[in-house]
């Protein structure tokens, strides 16, 4: 009992930082509608900058002043990012904004290592709060008590800010209807920038306050961002009170869960989240979102099946690819097979995102499940490769059945965040359940059967499987199922009105996509001969997203081209530089800003060039307007 109480106190102390970061994310989302993935990066930067300042300037003033100044510096960086990057993409679909901020996250990860080194850093203790007091024979740091008091204090201050100042009233108004606020003479640009700065300040302060408690590491950004996503999903995006309640809930579940289920404490949090989302899809304190401005895959050029000439062209390209083993060496073949595996992975995600309009940020989950499924088949059943290649996709399918059931209840950013959370849960299971998965050491010795064990054989096998799978996905796009799915994407309400059951159609698409991702994962396991938790990691999910984006999300199967281009580039980059994340992040950011239509979209645009519009306005303006018009149509239906 005493132990429980002590744990609960420690949980409350952890809740403070979590609340700060989550409320910042929530406030930013409320006004700008951007889910700032880089929030974790700002949290981490807050901790690093505070470390530097507090180590340099001793004493109470140096310490507390250091925390404050560090948070202000990072807030200024956040405002800079808003002005330079985000202002260019407010009109873009939400997915692009998430990706752009993710690109920034990647860049910060490498920059932090360049500036502060890769080693964990231990900051100074807080002056005046170095001691501990004894409770039930256990020591509780006085710093924890300070944090426990800080959470409600910040909540109160934020409440005053939002209800007792003109700025706060404007922010609350903009959270509800930002266009109307502009129509009343408020300059949204500065409102957005100031909101962003406040949100980032809270994140950085959350990070800075951690330095007396934990070491500063260059991977603290991803761990906090997933926890923060869980908090805001439970609490409701846009609600500060919700962030507070959910931060306490999640921290307590973590603190007490460790006592009850030491190995799978994350699962407890996750179960709570699942229950909350089923009962209240927009979180405990959240409100229903308006229909998104435009879904990812919406295209204004109708899709058509390939003409027979195009089919012959594709067949020729596949045949040409099949000739590769005649002149390529073993290394080139293995690179070729890897690219093919990612073609299938990207195509599976592409199907979900462009045909279904469901942007998954955790697609690696099904890729990794496929890889582990194949590995289990070999390791525990001693099955041959053929069987393992069937069991792998079945794992992907099973995972998609379960997580898809929850995810399709949500849409837009909530959907993306929930898919990410699922992927992280599965990753942590693979990481922690050492007896079965081997944990960090992975599972080794997953080699292909003899008939496919040569690099040529495996390449041909992969090519055949991938070509057939991609063709199948394309057939699905133009099947009645595909039409129904596109209907739910383009207008949920109208699809409902003509009798399409949105949830089951999207769930089915989720499952199809997860199954093919699982197949790609199973092939990947045999290609590498081993499986590690990294196959389930966020970087793989993001690779998939970038491939789809690069290929062009308004296309039928642009991901194929995107995957080939991106994977080849990534493999080449890795061999050229240590700062591949920095380069990759920069490429993602540039891509989002410069070419939202992707490679294939760009080619299509040239092929189908329309007659110039009457006032010569650019196509991007036309696109923005078309989505305007769409938004209006949606609103009319809603009325």
């Amino acid at each position: 009992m005493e132990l429980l109480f002590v744990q609960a106190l420690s949980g409350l102390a952890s809740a403070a930082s979590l609340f700060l970061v989550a409320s910042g994310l929530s406030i930013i989302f409320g006004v700008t509608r951007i889910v700032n993935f880089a929030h974790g990066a700002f949290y981490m930067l807050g901790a690093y900058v505070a470390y530097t300042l507090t180590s340099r300037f001793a004493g109470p003033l140096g310490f507390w002043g250091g925390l404050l100044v560090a948070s202000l510096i990072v807030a200024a960086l956040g405002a800079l990012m808003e002005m330079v990057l985000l202002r260019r993409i407010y009109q873009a679909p939400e997915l692009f904004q998430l990706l752009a901020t993710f690109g920034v996250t990647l860049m910060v990860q490498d920059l932090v290592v360049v500036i502060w080194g890769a080693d964990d850093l231990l900051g100074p203790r807080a002056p005046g709060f170095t001691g501990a007091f004894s409770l039930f024979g256990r020591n509780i740091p006085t710093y924890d008590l300070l944090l426990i008091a800080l959470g409600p204090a910040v909540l109160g201050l934020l409440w005053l800010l939002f209800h007792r100042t003109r700025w706060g009233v404007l922010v609350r108004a903009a959270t509800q209807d930002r266009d109307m606020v502009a129509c009343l003479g408020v300059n949204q640009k500065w409102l957005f920038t100031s909101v962003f700065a406040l949100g980032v300040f809270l994140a950085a302060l959350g990070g800075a306050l951690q330095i007396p408690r934990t070491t500063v590491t260059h991977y603290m950004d991803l761990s906090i961002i997933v926890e923060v996503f869980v908090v805001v999903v439970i609490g409701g995006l846009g609600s500060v009170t919700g962030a507070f309640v959910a931060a306490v809930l999640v921290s307590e579940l973590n603190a007490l869960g460790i006592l009850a289920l030491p190995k799978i404490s994350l699962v407890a949090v996750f179960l709570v989240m699942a229950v909350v989302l089923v009962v209240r899809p927009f979180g405990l304190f959240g409100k229903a979102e308006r229909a998104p401005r435009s879904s990812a895959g919406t295209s204004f050029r109708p899709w058509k099946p390939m003409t027979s000439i195009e089919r012959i062209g594709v067949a020729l390209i596949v045949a040409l690819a099949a000739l590769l083993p005649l002149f390529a060496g073993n290394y080139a073949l293995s690179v070729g097979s890897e690219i093919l595996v990612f073609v299938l992975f990207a195509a599976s995600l592409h199907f979900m995102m462009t045909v279904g309009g469901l942007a998954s940020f955790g697609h690696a989950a099904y890729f990794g499940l496929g890889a582990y499924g194949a590995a289990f088949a070999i390791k525990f059943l001693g099955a041959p490769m053929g069987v393992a290649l069937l069991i792998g996709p079945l794992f992907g399918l099973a995972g998609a059945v379960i997580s898809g059931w929850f995810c399709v209840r949500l849409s837009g950013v909530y959907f993306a965040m929930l898919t990410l959370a699922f992927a992280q849960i599965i990753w942590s299971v693979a990481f922690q359940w050492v007896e079965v998965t081997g944990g960090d050491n992975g599972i080794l010795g997953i080699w292909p059967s003899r008939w496919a064990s040569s690099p040529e054989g495996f390449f041909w096998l992969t090519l055949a499987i991938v070509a057939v799978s991609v063709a199948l996905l394309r057939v699905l796009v133009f099947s009645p199922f595909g039409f129904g799915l596109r209907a739910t994407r383009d207008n949920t309400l109208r699809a409902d009105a003509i009798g399409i059951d949105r949830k089951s159609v999207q769930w089915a698409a989720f499952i199809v996509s997860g199954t093919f991702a699982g197949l790609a994962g199973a092939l990947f396991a045999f290609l590498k001969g081993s499986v590690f938790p990294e196959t389930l990691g966020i970087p793989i999910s993001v690779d998939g997203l970038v491939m789809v984006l690069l290929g062009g999300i308004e296309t039928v199967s642009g991901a194929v081209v995107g995957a080939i281009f991106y994977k080849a580039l990534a493999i080449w980059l890795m061999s050229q530089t240590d700062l591949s994340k920095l380069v990759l992040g920069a490429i993602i950011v540039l891509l989002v800003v410069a070419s939202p239509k992707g490679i294939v979209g760009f080619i299509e645009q040239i092929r189908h060039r329309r007659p110039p519009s009457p006032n010569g306005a650019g196509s991007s303006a036309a696109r923005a307007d078309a989505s305007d018009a769409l938004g209006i149509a949606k609103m009319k239906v809603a009325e």
Partner: protein
Amino acid sequence: MKLEVAELNSFYGPAHILFDVGFAVGDGEVVAMLGRNGAGKSTTFRTIMGLVSRRAGLVKFEGDEITRLPSYEIVRRGLGYVPEDRRIFSELTVEENFEVGRQKPRPGAAAWTPDRIYKLFPNLGEMRRRLGGDMSGGEQQMLSIGRTLMGNPSLVLLDEPSEGLAPKIVEQMAGAILAMKREGLSIVISEQNLHFAKLICDRAYIIEKGRIRFSGTIDELEAHPEIRDAYLAV
């Protein structure tokens, strides 16, 4: 001229909505923009306010061109806008809604305050702390107009202020608009309802399928019932 609009064209995606729309409003004038549902009245207002991104033409306000200015800048120059669907902030109180609309006073004119607006719309004075979402349609319309007045405009675009309101409230609304006129405000009202326009307007334009079809005084319009029958629902 307070407001001059010439050769206004606007587009939603590939759809061409307004065709060379032009009209003018004098100082202190109340002008009606009449037309059926979907004729282009709201789009005209939205285009003037800079809310339709694909647009061409010329908009001059108090002699300055404002065609390419951002919405907030247009408002700050004194061109107020009350949208058709009212768009009150449902989670803000009446007073907070006013606060969002508040802008600097106009030189030479008395600043609008919540108290002055409560005199114009006495109903609102009794519900200062009520949330916008908990008000009736008529009260929301009054709140929306009052909120725009807090920006101290010299001209207001009123998009269908009588739509969906009970006859008694419509009467009250007409009285309030006339009171605004007496304060020296120029007003453009979009309307489907000729009877309402007759109560308050000096002149009228008729818009149909994105083109201006008629321009003249209300009396001239009265004298030509065939125009009314061709372009307006009666």
